[in-house]
């Protein structure tokens, strides 16, 4: 923590830019490296998806042979999960979590750099299969005994996943130590922003789930190379064991992929609704219970094996939908009666809620055992997982990128291009994945390269392919947007969205030591309190000044203590934007726009659409 005083001298060294980025231990630079690397893998995995969809657009073999196709969907899945979503959310957390908790860096900066550099190396191992005799071809789940066949591709896949898993474990340790040990004074656990809470729970899941996958991968490697018998019935082993081990990791993994997106949405919605988050504590407990329940549902991927106790896993699968439902309702209640600003981050967050709901309901269907028997390994499952990963994680990631881009670069992304991106992605996602529900119900099996012309699947497959290409096209305005914004003036200001959390209290981009001064932290919205006078020179006798509340008892505080008259407290001063629900959590949650004396006092570029 002594970095704050040492850092100004660090700028006096002159080092080459390349050397600086290759050797950096600054969490912001490492975060940016994570984000850039994983975006490249997103493009690569996306091109793979387009190949798959182009092949499936019409019946018959178009331009791929079955072996190439098997490699395509294997590498597509592995890339998107392990090389895109996981490093991307890790990168966002790397950049944002230390800022949100008022820390100067992560707890272990050099281990942080090590975690990052394992990602490109793991990607290299995965893709080197193409140069060494064929990439992995057993699907991203690598089911034994399919994955026990000859071929160097699967060995490289194993090595790559062990490396990427180690990176995740070290990253998780780093986040946990950072969150537990590096928080600014006053930032108690129940005042942490929801993104930090979600990173905390994600890290716990990573810490306890990934090592199990590593153990399974080691067993598979021993089976393949040293004559082991873990998954070989002829030697006394059991192929179902692989499924147990893989899904014991794999189900917490789906929450590892989606919880950071939950965190992002929980950050974006209050800022763009001009209201505090509805039910902060319920959010925290819902997140924690998702983390705990995530370890008790793995066998719902294995209903049809006949080797699992169906009522138990069906019940827990339904149960885990409850905390997720709590979150959906809390998000809706956060927007209810708020003064919504439909900027791009908000659009992505709202799109997330709408589409993730579809993906979540799909999942609840799959918990119904007889239904699951019907749709096991069909396109229904493909549709479900893409609704939660594309419509869920990817929408959350783009919400985060639009939201925090001004903090990371100082430049605000163009709203018009952002909205084009959102419209294309929203329509493309539904067009690509909704028809797959119907194909799955109709019995189309996943991972097939061809289907009969008279099966009646042609139109739906063609629609799905068109949607996939729309998703592909949607990244073009985004990349152009990033390009022109990075070339343009970096004039977004420190707090362009008029936000609540600490990362907006420093410059954009932040200096190497992050903060010169921290505002006092008395609630989960320290910056809101600072801007709206809730903590200015309060008498030490008020409960809030002793840090006992974050909202509820503050409603009882006399108005003069809070710095200025509160509109919500006047009987006749209520405005349409400030509803009674608002004052339940924070009486001073009136939208800034309705405070002329304050919004005129500062040159605030928070409305990007008004930018010249």
């Amino acid at each position: 923590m002594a970095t704050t005083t040492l850092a100004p001298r660090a700028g006096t060294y002159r080092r080459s830019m390349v050397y600086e980025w290759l050797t950096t231990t600054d969490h912001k630079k490492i975060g940016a490296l994570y984000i850039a690397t994983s975006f490249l893998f997103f493009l690569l995995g996306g091109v793979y998806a387009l190949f798959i969809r182009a092949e499936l657009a019409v019946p018959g073999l178009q331009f791929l042979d079955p072996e190439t196709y098997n490699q395509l969907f294997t590498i597509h899945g592995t890339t998107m999960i392990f090389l895109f979503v996981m490093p991307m959310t890790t990168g966002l957390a790397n950049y944002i979590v230390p800022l949100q908790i008022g820390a100067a860096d992560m707890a272990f900066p050099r281990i942080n750099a090590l975690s990052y550099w394992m990602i490109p190396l793991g990607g290299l191992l995965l893709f080197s299969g193409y140069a060494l005799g064929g990439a992995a071809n057993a699907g991203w789940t690598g089911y034994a005994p399919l994955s026990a066949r000859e071929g160097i591709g699967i060995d490289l896949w194993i090595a790559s996943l062990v490396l990427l898993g180690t990176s995740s474990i070290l990253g998780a340790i780093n986040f946990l130590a950072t969150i537990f040990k590096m928080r600014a004074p006053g930032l108690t656990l129940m005042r942490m922003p929801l993104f930090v809470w979600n990173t905390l729970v994600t890290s716990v899941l990573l810490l306890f789930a990934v090592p199990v996958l590593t153990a399974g991968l080691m067993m598979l490697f021993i089976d393949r190379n040293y004559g082991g018998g873990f998954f070989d019935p002829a030697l006394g082993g059991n192929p179902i064991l692989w499924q147990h081990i893989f899904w014991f990791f794999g189900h917490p993994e789906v929450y590892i992929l989606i919880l950071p997106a939950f965190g992002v949405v929980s950050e974006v919605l209050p800022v763009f609704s001009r209201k505090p988050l509805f039910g902060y504590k319920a959010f925290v407990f819902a997140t924690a219970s998702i983390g705990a329940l995530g370890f008790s549902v793995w066998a719902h991927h294995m209903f049809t094996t006949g080797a699992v106790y169906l009522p138990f896993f069906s019940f827990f699968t339904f149960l885990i939908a409850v905390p997720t439902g709590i979150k959906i309702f809390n998000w809706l209640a956060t927007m209810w009666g708020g003064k919504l600003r439909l900027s791009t981050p908000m659009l992505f967050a709202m799109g997330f809620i709408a589409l993730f709901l579809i993906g979540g309901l799909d999942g609840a269907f799959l918990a119904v055992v007889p239904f699951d028997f019907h749709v096991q390994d069909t396109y229904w499952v493909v549709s479900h997982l893409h609704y939660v990963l594309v419509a869920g994680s990817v929408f959350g990631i783009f919400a985060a990128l639009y939201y925090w881009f001004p903090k990371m670069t100082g430049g605000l992304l163009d709203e018009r291009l952002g909205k084009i991106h959102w419209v294309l992605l929203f329509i493309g996602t539904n067009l690509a994945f909704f028809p797959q529900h119907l194909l799955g119900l109709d019995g189309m099996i996943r991972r097939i390269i061809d289907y009969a012309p008279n099966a009646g699947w042609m139109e739906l497959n063609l629609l799905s392919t068109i949607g996939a290409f729309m998703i592909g096209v949607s990244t073009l305005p985004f990349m152009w947007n990033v390009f022109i914004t990075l070339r343009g003036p970096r004039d977004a200001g420190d707090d362009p969205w008029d936000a609540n959390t600490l990362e907006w209290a420093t410059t954009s981009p932040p200096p190497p030591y992050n903060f010169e001064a921290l505002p006092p932290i008395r609630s989960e919205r320290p910056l809101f309190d600072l801007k709206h006078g809730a903590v200015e020179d309060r008498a030490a006798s008020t409960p809030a000044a002793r840090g006992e509340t974050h909202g509820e008892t503050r409603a009882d505080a006399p108005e003069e203590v809070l710095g200025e008259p509160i509109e919500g407290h006047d009987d006749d001063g209520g405005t349409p934007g400030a509803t009674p629900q608002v004052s339940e959590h924070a009486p001073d949650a009136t939208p800034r726009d309705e405070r002329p004396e304050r919004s005129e006092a500062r040159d605030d570029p928070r409305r990007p659409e008004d930018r010249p």
Partner: protein
Amino acid sequence: MTAHTDVVRVPHQQEDPHEATGHAEQGMNTALLGMLLFIGSEVMFFAGLFAAYFNARAAAPEWPPQGIDFIVPSLIPVVATLILILSSATMQWAVWRIRKGDRTGMNRAIAITLLLGVVFLGMQAYDYYELLTHHGFGINSGIYGTLFYTLTGFHGAHVFGGVVGISIILLRGVAGQFSARHHIAVEAVSAYWHFVDVVWIALFVTLYLLH
């Protein structure tokens, strides 16, 4: 490089005298917390391997499989187990010495721990050699051989990792880098070594005693 923000102009205020130091100075040391979290992930790694063992054992008609009657608590495994337990005691002795500021005592205790760790690895290698040559029992000798060598092999690799860590703190201890106040590396390596010891006790009970 200075930064001026237009958002925060106030100097840092302290909420409470007891919070003046921030969180980092309270409670557990950050590095030790990191080591304990790492041990938590290692527990899950071995849990995966143990799950494979009990899965195979539950499915097998006979356990241990026919013809495997030589995995018994004979002299070598029993002595190796006692040596590893003893090394945990000497490791803890090193921690207690340095907490009192006794560098020489700590160095002695660490050196004995290192020696015991190396002897354990040597005995394990000898045991492997005996099993391979006299019984023809290898990793490809059916599920039992696969499980035996995977479980003990990964444990041995962790003992080796511990030996490397102990060597490092021994070198640092001889160089006089530890004191009663600053010896977090010793505490962390000690925690790891105890973990390796506990895993071995679980392995010994599972492989040699549970028949």
